């Protein structure tokens, strides 16, 4: 019986990956002492020479990983906070995501970039961001965003083994908050598959990261009121599990997409478009999105942060309205 937090699951998977494949190594800021969230704690002693503290320069962390992956190593990079990844955006957009395509598959990049994302930690504008909307616009890259410890563990392993570049998003608020009995728990091992976490006939909620947990909490309380929700844990954002999304949308006829990123241009728009395009005849209500308001970034002060973040109450309210439609 092993209960793991998200953080422990990540740390476990990293240790397993280093153990399983001598080509793997970890690089990033402060990783040798365990990193600011302690995801790599203890690994330096177990795997001498395979953790590299980098200079404070994210573009170099990703760019150097590209070179090492091209050579045949399997770098696992850590970007300390997702908010600081953007100086490496060019390396993702112009390089990593196109590597296989422009070499006609002759060369690919078996690399993972892990990064903590998301809010609710009083991190203010630069320690709370959702970055998925920018990076899911890059075919050639895979973007994984689990919610439960067992999936964190198995999908991080799958990401390391994948021959393509993977951006692996770890919701920092859930690191110590979410625990799970990991033995026998459902663990997705395939990148690109979603999971129906709860079945209910009235509507479907789509979410990932912290919002998945908030959605499950909302679904639980709605059930007591007689509203039954299907909840889909998206797990991988790119490539999307279109089949599961459409199947659940068709089954329930009402859909609510939840994310903590801002609304306009947010990832929810893609899911909404898919459903509108391919499940239109099955819909009993307009597609509903619940997201943060369109302001530049998450504010720091408590009241404004709470206002910004969707949560179980806001989800329940939106779901009730939708159910009553």
């Amino acid at each position, binding site marked *: 019986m092993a209960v793991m937090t998200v953080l422990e699951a990540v740390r476990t998977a990293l240790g397993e990956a280093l153990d399983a494949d001598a080509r793997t190594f970890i690089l990033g*800021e*402060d990783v*040798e*002492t*365990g990193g*600011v969230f302690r995801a790599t704690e203890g690994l330096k002693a177990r795997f001498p020479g395979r953790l590299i*503290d980098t*200079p*404070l*320069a994210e*573009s*170099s962390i990703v760019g150097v990983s590209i070179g090492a992956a091209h050579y045949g190593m399997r770098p696992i990079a850590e970007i300390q906070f997702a*908010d*600081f990844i*953007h*100086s490496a955006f060019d390396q993702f957009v112009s390089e990593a995501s196109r590597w296989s395509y422009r070499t006609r598959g002759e060369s690919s990049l078996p690399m993972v970039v892990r990064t903590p994302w998301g809010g609710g930690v*009083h*991190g*203010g*504008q*630069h*320690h709370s961001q959702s970055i998925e909307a920018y990076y899911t616009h890059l075919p050639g890259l895979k973007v994984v965003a689990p919610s439960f410890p067992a999936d964190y563990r198995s999908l991080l392993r799958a990401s390391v083994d994948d021959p393509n570049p993977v951006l692996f998003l770890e919701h920092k608020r859930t690191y110590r908050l979410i625990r799970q009995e990991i033995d026998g728990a459902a663990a997705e091992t395939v990148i690109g598959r979603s999971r129906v976490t709860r079945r209910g006939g009235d509507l479907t909620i789509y979410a990932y990261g912290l919002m998945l947990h908030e959605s499950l909490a909302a679904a639980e309380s709605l059930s007591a009121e007689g509203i039954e929700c299907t909840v889909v844990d998206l797990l991988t954002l790119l490539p999307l599990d279109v089949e599961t999304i459409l199947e659940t949308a068709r089954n329930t006829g009402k859909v609510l997409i939840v994310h903590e990123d801002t609304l306009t241009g947010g990832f929810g728009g893609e899911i909404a478009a898919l459903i509108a395009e391919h499940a239109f005849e099955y819909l009993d209500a307009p597609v509903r999105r619940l997201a943060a*308001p*369109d*302001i*530049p970034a998450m*504010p*720091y*002060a*408590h*009241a*404004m942060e*709470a*206002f*910004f973040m969707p949560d179980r109450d806001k989800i329940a309210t939106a779901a009730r309205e939708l159910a009553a439609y």
Partner: protein
Amino acid sequence: MTAKERRPRSKETIDQYLLSEQQLEEMYETMLLARRLNERMLALNRQGRAPFFIGGTGQEAAQVGAAMSLKRGEDYLVPYYRDLAMNLVFGMSAREAMLNLLAKKDDPHGGGRQMPSHWGVGSRKVVTGGSVVATQLLHAAGIALAAKMSSDPIVVLTCCGEGSTSKGDFHEALNFAQIHRLPVIFYVQNNGYAISESTEKEMPIAHVADRARAYNMHSASVDGMDAIAVYQTVKPAVDQARRGGGPFLIEARCYRLGAHSSDDDDSRYRPKAELEEWTQKDPITLFRRRVETDKVFPPEELDEIEERVTAEVQDAVEWATNQPDPAPEDALGFVYRE
């Protein structure tokens, strides 16, 4: 008889400092205020009254000596998150510092929209910045470019830590500024660490100042624990930049006496002996010892300053605590300028 009248003035020593008596007093008082504020802020964090704290303990001399080299109200300061003492020089009060820490509605540095220690007040010529390190160095170059194009005789001083000099933005800023001979001082506070990484992991050179050579830029490396030495190094560089002599890279060698932030446990990576060694070089203790030895101020006067500062901090906490918090919907404003 007041302490001031009793003072055995030592005019030559004061002249040697290149600082007036009044400036020396300001130097001491500002360093001390920054220190006491930071101590109190950390305590408030530990009491659960402030979710986040990041401070400049150990860097007060580096900050005060440099900021006092600028013309307040005219020159621009583009600071980084440890520069509480610089902001105090530029007109921030203890009350305002606490408003910022507690993310109160009337905090002039964004009213709770950013983490504390992300300062910026346009009217004071302190330029807003985010948390992404080194981005501000380019803004500083841009301000200096605009000033030069406008024949405005100002100087821009911008700060970062030594770890941040690894970023491309740092190198791009120096390159741009030197090509155009801009009136900007790149002021790097080398405190020995970037979170857990000591300088050998951050760069292959011993002195940040050596980076200037790649850009054909003037540079200096100064003992950042000595406020007077800092002033004596930065002031001529500022004067030279103002006269059109171009940019300067200045490294202040100091030490982060505290943890990186309230979320950091520095015992995980920092040798105790090293911390103890640097504690012996505490910039405020050093300053006090020096002015006492040189008989610039009698000890009673320094004690008076100490009392004044303590009272100011106490008042600031009490006052700021009772100021209003932002309302939830305040989050929506100012996305665009109307």
